[in-house]
């Protein structure tokens, strides 16, 4: 089955099996391994990417469902000159990660959350990230990072 989609601004066209999951397409065929596979059961959120600008769990979509879609992965957030996205910068500055495994998914979920609600309360951040698990339980600084990103003036 042929599938065409744009990932991080680059158009792709590939022949895939219908049962190929979007996360496997992104990692295995496109080589974008920043998106992690965690629980593999739509629970942990580590495979979160943006689908048309909204957060989705890429382990729970078929690659063929991405036909015509605009996908953004963690690799697509920073500017081409290497400058980090404000959410990435806020995670670094606020130590919003420990082991780092959940981080790409957390960052993508946070970007989606701030698109929908640019000035969330701490409670709204916690609720907005309910689909993402951090097994280091480093939630405190993750929430701090998202709040800091919301305060930063250059949030695009």
């Amino acid at each position: 089955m042929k599938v065409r989609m744009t990932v991080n601004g680059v158009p792709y066209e590939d022949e895939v099996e219908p049962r190929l999951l979007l996360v496997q397409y992104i990692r295995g065929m496109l080589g974008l391994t920043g998106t992690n596979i965690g629980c593999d059961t739509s629970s942990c959120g580590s495979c979160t990417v943006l689908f048309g600008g909204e957060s989705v769990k890429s382990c729970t979509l078929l690659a063929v469902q991405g036909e015509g879609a605009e996908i953004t992965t963690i690799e697509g957030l920073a500017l081409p000159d290497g400058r980090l996205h404000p959410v990435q910068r806020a995670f670094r500055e606020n130590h919003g990660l420990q082991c780092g495994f959940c981080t790409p998914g957390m960052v993508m979920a946070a970007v989606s959350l701030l698109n929908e609600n640019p000035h969330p309360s701490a409670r709204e951040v916690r609720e907005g990230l309910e689909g993402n698990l951090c097994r280091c339980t480093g939630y405190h600084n993750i929430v701090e990072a998202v709040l800091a990103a919301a305060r930063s003036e250059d949030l695009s």
Partner: protein
Amino acid sequence: MIPARFDYRRAGSVGEAVALLSEFPGAKLLAGGHSLLPLMRLRLAVPSLLIDIGPVSGLSYVRDEGDHLSVGALTRHRDLELSEVVRREAPVLSYAAGQVGDPQVRHRGTIGGSLAHGDPASDLPAVVLALDGTLVAEGPAGPREIPATDFFCGFLETAIGPDEVLTEVRLPKARGGWSFQKFNRRAQDWATVGVVAVAGDGRGTGPFRVALVNMGLTPLRAAAVEEAAAGGAGPAEAASRAAEGTEPPSDLNATAEFRRHLASVLVRRALEEAMAGERTVA
């Protein structure tokens, strides 16, 4: 986990989906996929063909039809959360849609998919029961209406025929008192038990319709509670009958006995909140 092999076709219209369903027994419809794909990955569902109705245009909408709302089957949970019409005319639906799963799930999952899946632990089937909705299914002979009370037939079984597509949900307006209570152990879990209560006349404060999540093989109306409340019983007295006629499961999260107790607690809270009168979604 990768699903077992299947064939995949995109349907461009409801008619095309109906034709494919008629042609291929063993096919399943794919909408948002957030109930079906997890089952397929666990090999609990092994359809030979997936008919993707995601590309069907014109099935995502909320229309104000005067006394009721018409909601397209492909309307996502996130759309219900945000819809000004739903927030105004059926606030319990907007609120409950915002409690489904997590944001990522709500960006993909659809009301039609949730209803067609028929999971007694899902939130929206109980909401549609409590709102006394009507579902529209379209097959080779055209569309037909199914009252929500006749829709849920058994565990993950609905009244939709094998060659029918659920296209629309019609919901009487319910601007009066309402409540949605969901008890779960972790943020994104299904409800251990959930309760929906709405003022039945759609405007005032009664009589109340009450539906239960995860208290049997299907989503249920709490008939004994409704009867008691209509007879003048207060929330606590009516709620003491919450488990009548239910057969709650025992599983890793809760025993049946705990669920029966929880149902009475949550029904009492739901009635107290709904009887306090109308309110907007925060």
